[in-house]
């Protein structure tokens, strides 16, 4: 309904604009000849010159408003992984560079458009070339970009380089339309062999583990991802049907899951779920979200529907590669906890060999 009303209002605005133009046209028609019909006059140049300055102000204002109103939305300084601050710092530095260039170039562009607005009889400066200037604005970007490239590539190599020597916890992330599973290697921290051709739904071998592989026997398959804080994790990713992408925004981590191959991504979680919930930033966010949910619930209750649940923060794994109808709801909860809590949780989980159903 809101949308319909919006559209109706828009149509009315349109009609109003229309009428205004007709009036403009009539007003201009009398001092126009064939030569100048449809061509900007000095008056047009002046008006649009001033509007260009107005537009510059608009760009600056929308930038400031966005930063003030939405500035706390971006994931910038609250990463929950060891490599997170590297990415965040690089992001902040890049943003500073970008906004400096943006502010200056937009100013020059719009200010020139205002300052040099055309007048009859004025002649422009014949200024066709200047090698020094060209050199300046080739070399400056080269230097700035060289800095960003070196910093960026250094970070990239550090993040993507997997160091097997620090004994990472091996976890398989398994994607299918439209949910996630996690598989742990058990006491030996080694995943059993698997292939989708071995999937046997009747025996509840849903990830296609090789039942004869000794490493597979103590594997644990879960629908929640639990990670002990401070220990490096190496994710091995599989997909059984189409491309998916394992996106864990709070950990600054993402990797596609590709059918037919195993991809990997490693990081070290540094903040437990409980600790993250207690940070000021997160509490503000949760408060804000719950306010919105209370408002929404009021409307829902008025319509006779159930109210929304109170939101509490959890880390999430989202699918971030278009994968079909329910792509928008393909998620898994991530819990980062202390080693003891993790061990206790792991103890409750069923081992693969015990989870198989007998064939009749």
């Amino acid at each position, binding site marked *: 309904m809101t949308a319909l009303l919006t559209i109706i209002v828009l149509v009315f605005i349109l009609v109003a604009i229309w009428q205004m133009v007709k009036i403009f046209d009539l007003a201009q028609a009398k001092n126009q000849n064939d030569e100048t019909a449809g061509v900007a006059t000095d008056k047009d140049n002046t008006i649009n010159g001033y509007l260009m300055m107005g537009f510059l102000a608009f760009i600056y204002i929308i930038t400031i408003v966005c930063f003030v109103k939405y500035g706390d939305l971006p994931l910038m300084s609250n990463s929950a992984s060891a490599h997170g601050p590297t990415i965040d710092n690089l992001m902040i530095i890049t943003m500073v560079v970008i906004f400096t260039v943006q502010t200056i170039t937009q100013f020059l562009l719009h200010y020139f458009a205002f300052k040099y607005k055309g007048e009859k009889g004025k002649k422009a400066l014949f200024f066709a070339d200047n090698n020094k200037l060209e050199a300046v604005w080739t070399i400056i970007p080269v230097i700035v970009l060289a800095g960003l490239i070196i910093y960026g590539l250094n970070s990239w190599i550090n993040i993507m380089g997997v160091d097997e020597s620090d004994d990472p916890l091996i976890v398989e992330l398994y994607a299918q339309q439209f949910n996630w599973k996690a598989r742990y290697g058990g006491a030996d921290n080694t995943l059993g062999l698997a292939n989708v051709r071995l999937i046997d739904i009747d025996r509840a071998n849903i990830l296609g583990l090789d039942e004869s592989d000794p490493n597979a026997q103590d594997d644990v398959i879960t629908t929640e991802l639990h990670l002990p804080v401070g220990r490096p994790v190496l994710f091995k990713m599989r997909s059984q049907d189409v491309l998916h992408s394992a996106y864990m925004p709070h950990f600054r981590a993402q990797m596609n899951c590709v059918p037919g191959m195993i991809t990997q991504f490693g990081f070290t979680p540094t903040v437990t779920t409980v600790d993250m919930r207690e940070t000021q930033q997160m509490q503000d966010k949760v408060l804000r979200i719950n306010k919105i949910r209370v408002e929404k619930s009021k409307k829902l209750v008025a319509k006779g529907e159930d109210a929304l649940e109170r939101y509490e923060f959890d880390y999430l794994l989202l699918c971030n590669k278009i994968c*079909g109808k329910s792509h928008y709801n393909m998620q898994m909860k991530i819990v980062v906890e202390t080693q003891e809590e993790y061990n206790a949780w792991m103890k409750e989980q069923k081992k693969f060999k015990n989870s198989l159903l007998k064939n009749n």
Partner: protein
Amino acid sequence: MSAHADIHVHEDDHGHHHKETFMTKYIFSQDHKMIAKQYLITGTIMGIIGVLMSMMMRIQIAWPEEPNVLFEALLGSWAPDGVMDADIYLALVTIHGTIMVFFVLTAGLSGTFSNLLIPLQIGARDMASGFLNMVSFWLFFLSSVIMLVSLFVEAGPAAAGWTIYPPLSAIPLAQGGSGLGMTLWLVSMALFIAQSLLGSLNYIVTVINLRTKGMSMTRLPLTIWTFFITAVIGVVSFPVLLSAALLLIMDRSFGTSFFLSDIFIQGEVLHYQGGSPVLFEHLFWFLGHPEVYIVILPAMGLVSEIMASSSRKPIFGYRAMIASILAIAFLSTIVWGHHMFISGMNPFLGSVFTFTTLLIAIPSAVKAFNWITTLWKGNLQMNPAMLFSIAFVSTFITGGLTGIILGDSALDINVHDTYFVVAHFHLVMGISALYGMFAGIYHWYPKMFGRMMNKNLGYIHFWVTAVCAYGVFFPMHFIGMAGLPRRYYTNSNFPLFDDLANVNVVITIFALIGGVVQIIYLYNFFSSIFYGKKSVQNPWKSTTLEWTTPVENIHGNWPGEIPHVHRWAYDYSKPGHDADFVPQNVPLKDGEEELQH
């Protein structure tokens, strides 16, 4: 019945070789100006559909739970009781992307202006092959029709995203749209690629062979340079997409396994083994990335030309502009991997692509600074075309700068496939190229139709569009950086994103205003064809050759001899001349020096 040959000139002063019927003049025309108009009108129709789709998507994102009469009216059984179906949302995403990138901003932009301007600005009677040109348009038309027909397939049109990554696009079990809808998509795109190749070859041959006397490569207007290089990029990269599409057709219909392996879906194991979707991604982006330059380069050319003409100043750094076009063209073919940093390809490759990608910022920066300097101390004529050109530079800078974030593999990890990407590419290639197209249309409308567009409607169209474009895409960066993935039918399954909902409403309102205001443009465009003020021969007082032809379009372009060229295209406000422009066909005065630019 070729129209280009010079031999006709002296025999026939009026350029009318024979009587033209309605069919040969308006439908199966071989005249480049008519073909340009055909491209423009078809592109406009496709554009209307593409924009309507984006408006429906925006309404869905802003008010996901609410039934909407618009959906009910336009989507029919895909929106029972006015609530949009999740599958059709993905179909809208896919077809909107395909239509806007290929049908509007490639064929509609490049097809229109390459056809219109190449022969007129280089001084040729027509394209090298008028017949191929006609075939190329009709292949485009056919491919448009097939794309539109695919919207009416019962299981839904293609819905795997405009990138159609397999296996989603290859297996009908994965998604309704991957059945007949995807088949039609592939057929349509195959025809599209064929038309694009025919067109590109024609442009290349024409530019190389048919330049008039005196029109050396370094006297060409920058428009021609960009069309020429765009055609070269197209010829290099489009065949790769064609091969990807053919291999995908093989996988879909003939049981091969180029892109598929180890798939278990809906309770059954499929036979595919040994292929890799990553291979498809490489093939797709080998076209896909150059494609964004195929879209933006012609817009850059149009903007350079309009800026010089409207500033009454030579374009600044003509040679640097050509060098940067060449650099961009070269680099564009070796950066495709930046779409695939997290695709599972070797991270070392990611490093290489980060390096090449960030290099592309250098020629882009050179271009931006040259445009800004072109304005400096000019005598700016603020026609609607000029306003769109200035706005082009503005959105190109804003959108281009965020490319530094996305091209940096380490930063891409966290914003890949979020709304940050959507904001980035819409500004830098979507909105910018659209501005270039609008600028071109306002500027060359008198050449196409012999009449002027209404400038006041043009001003309103421009200012509302300019404000809305920033209103839509600037805040969108923030929800992207908050981690919101794109292509989600609704975000309400993630309470985490609840505080982004109001931003989405703001964006949608700007999008709706921006979309609706295009009606003003459409009205202006179509009514001016019949009721616009008659144009004079050279309304903008430009130097290039197209303004030496008569107002009424004639076959063969010039009634008499083709003018000879004596100078470069940018002699605006040259000292020693009374007028503030000296057309290219005016001989040098005694003692006048030609700038060697």
